[in-house]
């Protein structure tokens, strides 16, 4: 059964059509990649899924529930989490606090209990702190725990952002260019964490990425976008061989490299 099914999405800002006629499904523990040139509408799809933009047409079903019209925090509470292309961490807070924020909806106590921070509120804090430590352990962030994230190196910040998304215990994870701007070593580390997420946690993922090597190695299926429209969806091998994809995105040179 599909975790997420997107059908006929159309998103336009006045005359500019950002996304048109996009339909796809993501299955359980599947890693679905979206690729395409800059401005093809990849991030716009993420913004539609997480409720930042509202499309004019189409439908988005997440675990059988319609998501369109819900505000972002409502969608988050249903188990959708994401990372951002340009890191969107809470830069003055420590790594622990950033991850604790990922567990915001796993805690239920309100403002009045927060003033006292005793009893149930304290229990919830402790329980969630221990869940956060599991994520810290998983992503090997131990040494950075107490640092305000604004002071951390770029690659570590990317990892903290993945950690914040994982701390939410998501049912679907959206990764927006997880290795953008990273060197080879950092890219390999991140690829390993993404594989770990899939194998150990079994969380389905949608990944937008420009690093073709990474996409072709990791993804189960790939959707190629151009000018807001999907031009081909298939396995990495099928997509790489498609003449439309080569013309629009990969380029003629790629044919010889791929074969």
């Amino acid at each position, binding site marked *: 059964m599909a975790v997420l099914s997107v059908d006929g999405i159309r998103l336009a800002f006045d005359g500019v059509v950002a996304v048109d006629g996009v339909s796809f499904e993501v299955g359980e523990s599947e890693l679905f990649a979206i690729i395409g040139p800059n401005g093809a509408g990849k991030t716009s799809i993420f913004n539609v899924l997480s409720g930042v933009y509202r499309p004019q047409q189409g439908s988005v079903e997440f675990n059988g529930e319609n998501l369109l019209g819900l505000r972002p*925090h409502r969608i988050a509470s249903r188990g959708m989490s994401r990372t951002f292309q340009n890191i969107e961490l*809470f830069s003055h807070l420590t790594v622990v606090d950033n991850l604790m924020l990922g567990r*915001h909806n796993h805690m239920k106590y309100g403002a009045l209990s*927060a003033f006292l*921070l005793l009893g149930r509120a304290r229990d*919830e804090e402790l329980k969630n702190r221990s869940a956060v430590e599991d994520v810290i352990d998983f992503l090997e962030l131990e040494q950075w725990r107490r640092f305000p994230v604004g002071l951390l190196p770029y690659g570590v910040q990317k990892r903290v952002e993945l950690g914040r998304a994982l701390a939410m215990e998501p049912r679907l994870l959206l990764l927006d260019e997880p290795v953008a701007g990273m060197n080879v070593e950092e890219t390999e580390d991140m690829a390993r964490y993404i594989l770990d997420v899939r194998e150990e946690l079994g969380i389905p993922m949608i990944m937008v990425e420009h690093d073709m090597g990474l996409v072709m190695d990791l993804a189960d299926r790939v959707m190629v976008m151009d000018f807001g429209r999907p031009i081909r969806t298939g396995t990495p091998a099928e997509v790489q061989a498609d003449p439309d994809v080569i013309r629009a995105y990969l380029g003629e040179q790629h044919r010889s490299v791929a074969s």
Partner: protein
Amino acid sequence: MKGRPELYTSYAQDMAFLNTRPKRAWTGGLVILALVLPFAITDDLLQLLATGFVAAIGAIGLNIVTGYAGQVSLGHAFFLAIGAYTGAALSGSETGRVIGFGITSLPIWLLASGLVAAFFGVLVAPVAVRLRGLYLAIVTLGLVFLGEHVFREWTSLTGGPGVGRPAAVPELFGVRLDQDNAVFTAAQQLYLVMFVLLVIFGVLARNLVRSRVGRAFAAVRDRDLAASVIGVDLTKYKVLAFAVSSFYAGVAGALLFVMNGFFDPGSFSLLLSVQYIAMVLIGGAGTISGAIMGALFITLLPRITRELPAVLPFISGDATGAVTVFQVEAVLYGVLIIVFLIVEPRGLFGIWVRVRNYWRTWPFSY
């Protein structure tokens, strides 16, 4: 763990209210100092410090909405005024000139003042949800002028400009705190009560800001887009920040003039808001102890500038002369804000952190 007191063996230790030995030692020391002071210094200084403690409660409130939740508010004077008039009207006696309900029990009118101010905070908050930064500052600035007008005209409540009305009547367990008795002078009593109230409201606020709610405030401040996609309801937390902040302002407002016993509507001008902004910025935005330091600093500042004419003869001590102490004072708020923003944006708290880190690694400076 014997011999390694700094080693945490549980998350509860790590997340404790005072989680390090130096914190416990400093807090204990300051509390003892504060409790000894009333028997060591003169009554007029005690009065000033008591006012400082009350201002600290107000500054903590402003820091919650501005320092933690990132919503710049210039309207703090308005909420202080709401608290001051609620407290004064509830506890005061009907004189024919100003209204009063004669409920003199301090806990009751204090809570009521906070709640009424919080109610107005919630009324204003929907505007804050739609605006940010400078635009929000301008709208909250409008509140101050609106309030000034209403309080000037509503003379049965406020006594009118230049005349004023008696401040809230502080009575605790049947003891009038603003009158000398066999054991304590009025100043000593008020000082101790204000100190206890500051400790209570300070501890509550610090719990709030290190809780799920406080983290959500900081998330809204740092990145509101990211906050919403991880599940923080922006509207809810902005409204909550305004409610808590104005509750604190209401409490502080109700207590602020108890030491003097009298106040008039002219007190709640833009200058009062600016003073509180100065407390937060000079003390350190986004810290509870910083707000307290800033409030004490700004409250004690006039006392220091009053000594200036003795040192610098060209400054006159009264309202006559080319340069008066009052002008120097007003200029100092602005200069201090600018200096702190440029030199130490983390305020007095930041200076303290630097001193602490220096001695932590002493004598190795790396």
